[in-house]
């Protein structure tokens, strides 16, 4: 556990860590006020003033360097800004695509190539400019996603202009670009876009090794399971000591790929590439459909990764409902079937509440 300097803010903090520190100060102040009001603890005036001064200085410093939200209202506004930034980036990226599509037929081939190559470079330059000018990273995130979209447009349209055989390697280039933007400015959205491209590239590689066209390779769930496991291994191999918020993106994207592919093959075992007969495949994937989310829940509790626990629990419940449907829907009276579903939902809620408490207990500092 890294020590936190209590006299001043750590100069190497990242923005999410700075926000957590500001949240801790706010929680401490609220609790102290409650204790004082209840007469449980009353600090001497001098000590109280010293703590107040120290926290004020720390908050000012955090706000200045990381633009953290000190008040609850500011936090809500930040979430709003993040949503607006995501929607804005999507709309701008779409507009870049449509703008190019509207006019590219009127341009000569050299002009088309020049525009396509310049677009991501210019957008990336603007991302750098935005990151220097404002500390919140909102505009940098927006422009980073636009740069990513321009790079996707660039390689896609070059493929169309020169009639190139489509290659999965374009996804590797996009994945690397998303990662470069993300690590340069600490942005999660470009990383999420990059990790999705990485998942597609990895799944494509599994099939192409056995002679399949890469597009067909994406039609087999086992390829996505292997790709998801590889992405889950990224933060294990490359430790994120400073950028924990980026590590989370690999974990969630990798886990989603594994669990979604398991659900898919459990529902449609014909899509499997394993050389087993249909009945054995069904049994195998129905069992794995429960075991893997359960293992992910256990791992999430152990490592105190709440998001992993919730995602795995959701897939576990979906899988459970799908199996109930397979086993009972046809022969069971419908009222009984839905009663069982309802009771299961109540049971799932109880389990989730226990998981929540377990997570909270594990999170509590010793």
């Amino acid at each position, binding site marked *: 556990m890294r020590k936190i300097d209590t006299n001043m803010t750590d100069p190497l903090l990242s923005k999410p860590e700075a926000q957590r520190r500001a949240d801790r100060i706010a929680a401490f102040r609220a609790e102290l006020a409650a204790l004082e009001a209840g007469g449980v603890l009353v600090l001497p005036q001098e000590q109280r003033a010293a703590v107040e001064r120290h926290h004020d200085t720390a908050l000012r410093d955090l706000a200045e360097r990381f633009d953290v939200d000190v008040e609850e209202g500011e936090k809500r506004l930040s979430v709003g800004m993040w949503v607006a930034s995501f929607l804005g980036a999507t709309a701008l990226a779409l507009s870049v695509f*449509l703008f190019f*599509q*509207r*006019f*590219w*037929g*009127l*341009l*000569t*081939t050299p002009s088309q*190539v020049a525009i*396509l*190559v310049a677009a*991501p*470079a210019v957008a*990336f*330059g603007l991302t*750098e400019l935005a*990151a*220097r000018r404002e500390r919140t990273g909102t505009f940098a995130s927006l422009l980073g996603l636009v*740069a990513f979209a321009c*790079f996707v447009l*660039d*390689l896609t349209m*070059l*493929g*169309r*202009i*020169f*009639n*190139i*055989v*489509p290659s999965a390697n374009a996804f590797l*280039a996009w994945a*690397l*670009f998303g990662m*470069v*933007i993300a*690590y*340069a*400015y600490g942005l999660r959205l470009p990383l999420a876009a990059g990790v999705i491209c990485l998942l597609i590239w990895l799944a494509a590689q599994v*099939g192409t090794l056995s*002679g*399949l*066209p890469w597009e*067909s390779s994406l*039609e*087999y769930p086992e390829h996505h399971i292997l790709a998801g496991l590889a992405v889950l291994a990224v933060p294990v191999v490359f430790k994120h000591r400073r950028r924990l918020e980026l590590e989370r993106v690999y974990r969630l994207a990798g886990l989603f790929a594994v669990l979604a592919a398991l659900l898919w093959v459990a529902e449609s075992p*014909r899509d499997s*590439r394993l050389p087993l007969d249909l009945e054995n495949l069904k049994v195998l994937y129905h069992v794995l459909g429960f075991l893997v989310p359960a293992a992910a829940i256990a791992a999430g509790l152990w490592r105190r990764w709440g998001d992993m626990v919730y995602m795995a629990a959701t897939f576990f419940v979906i899988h459970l409902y799908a199996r109930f449907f397979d086993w009972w829907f046809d022969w069971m009276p419908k009222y009984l079937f839905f009663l069982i579903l309802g009771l299961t939902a109540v049971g799932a809620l109880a389990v989730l509440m226990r998981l929540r408490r377990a997570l909270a207990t594990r999170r509590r500092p010793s």
Partner: protein
Amino acid sequence: MKLRGLLAGLALIALANAAVLAGVAWNRRGEPDATITLTERELQIPWGAVNDEDDTGLDLQLEWNVRWSAGGRAPEGLPLATLRELGFEPRVGRKEPPRTAWVVMEMDGEAWQRWVAKRRRQVEEERRKEPDSDCPPGSDLEQMLVSGSRLVVVDAGRDREALRRRHPDRSRYLVVPGTVDAREVRPGVFEGLVSDLRVNSIHVPLRLRPALDELVTAERMRRETSNSAYVDSPRYRATVAFGRRGEPWLVSVEKLPAPVNPPAGSASAPPPAPPDGCSG
């Protein structure tokens, strides 16, 4: 970190684009692997180009004869030996994933003639069986002869050079990357089918657009004023080169003179019956 990130990003953009453009230059270097003349029968203006005014680019769709052509009556499929060479191990009741392969397509050659002759015999046989039918067979044959693509798949394999040695005429045989599927045509009998070409449309650069733009505009106006969507006689021909990677590019496009007597199915004649039977 930020400056390093910026430099890494710009380097990545430059590298990726350089790799793509170097691949294009390599494909087009030296003598093309094949240079072939196709008409509108094989290279069609796609529906989207006429309808979507928001996309000013134009790609011509490469049409070739596949199993579902001409009312389900297809040219020969690829033999089992070819499937085995591609790594298929066909077994009854088991679906195998498709494979990438080099595909040989013949333009207006023996395979096409054999197919037409076979279809003609089938039509004559059908007419003999039902001489008084309200729905005379063979409308698909007429359409096939006027507007059907004459590109027919004749071979496939993993070794491109070997395929080229077997089919040396570079003005008639294309060796291009494609996707092959194994199909069980009858219980226990398998044959190969080219389900897709890796490049199935060819971009038209600005310098070759005028002749085609005229047709697209005329087609748009015709569709606004007429209900008929049938245009049968080819209106242009194009020379297409295929490079070292089997990637094509347009060399020239020229308009063809309009036929003196429009064939059945053209804009001024009633549309032909659909290939699978009479419309009623």
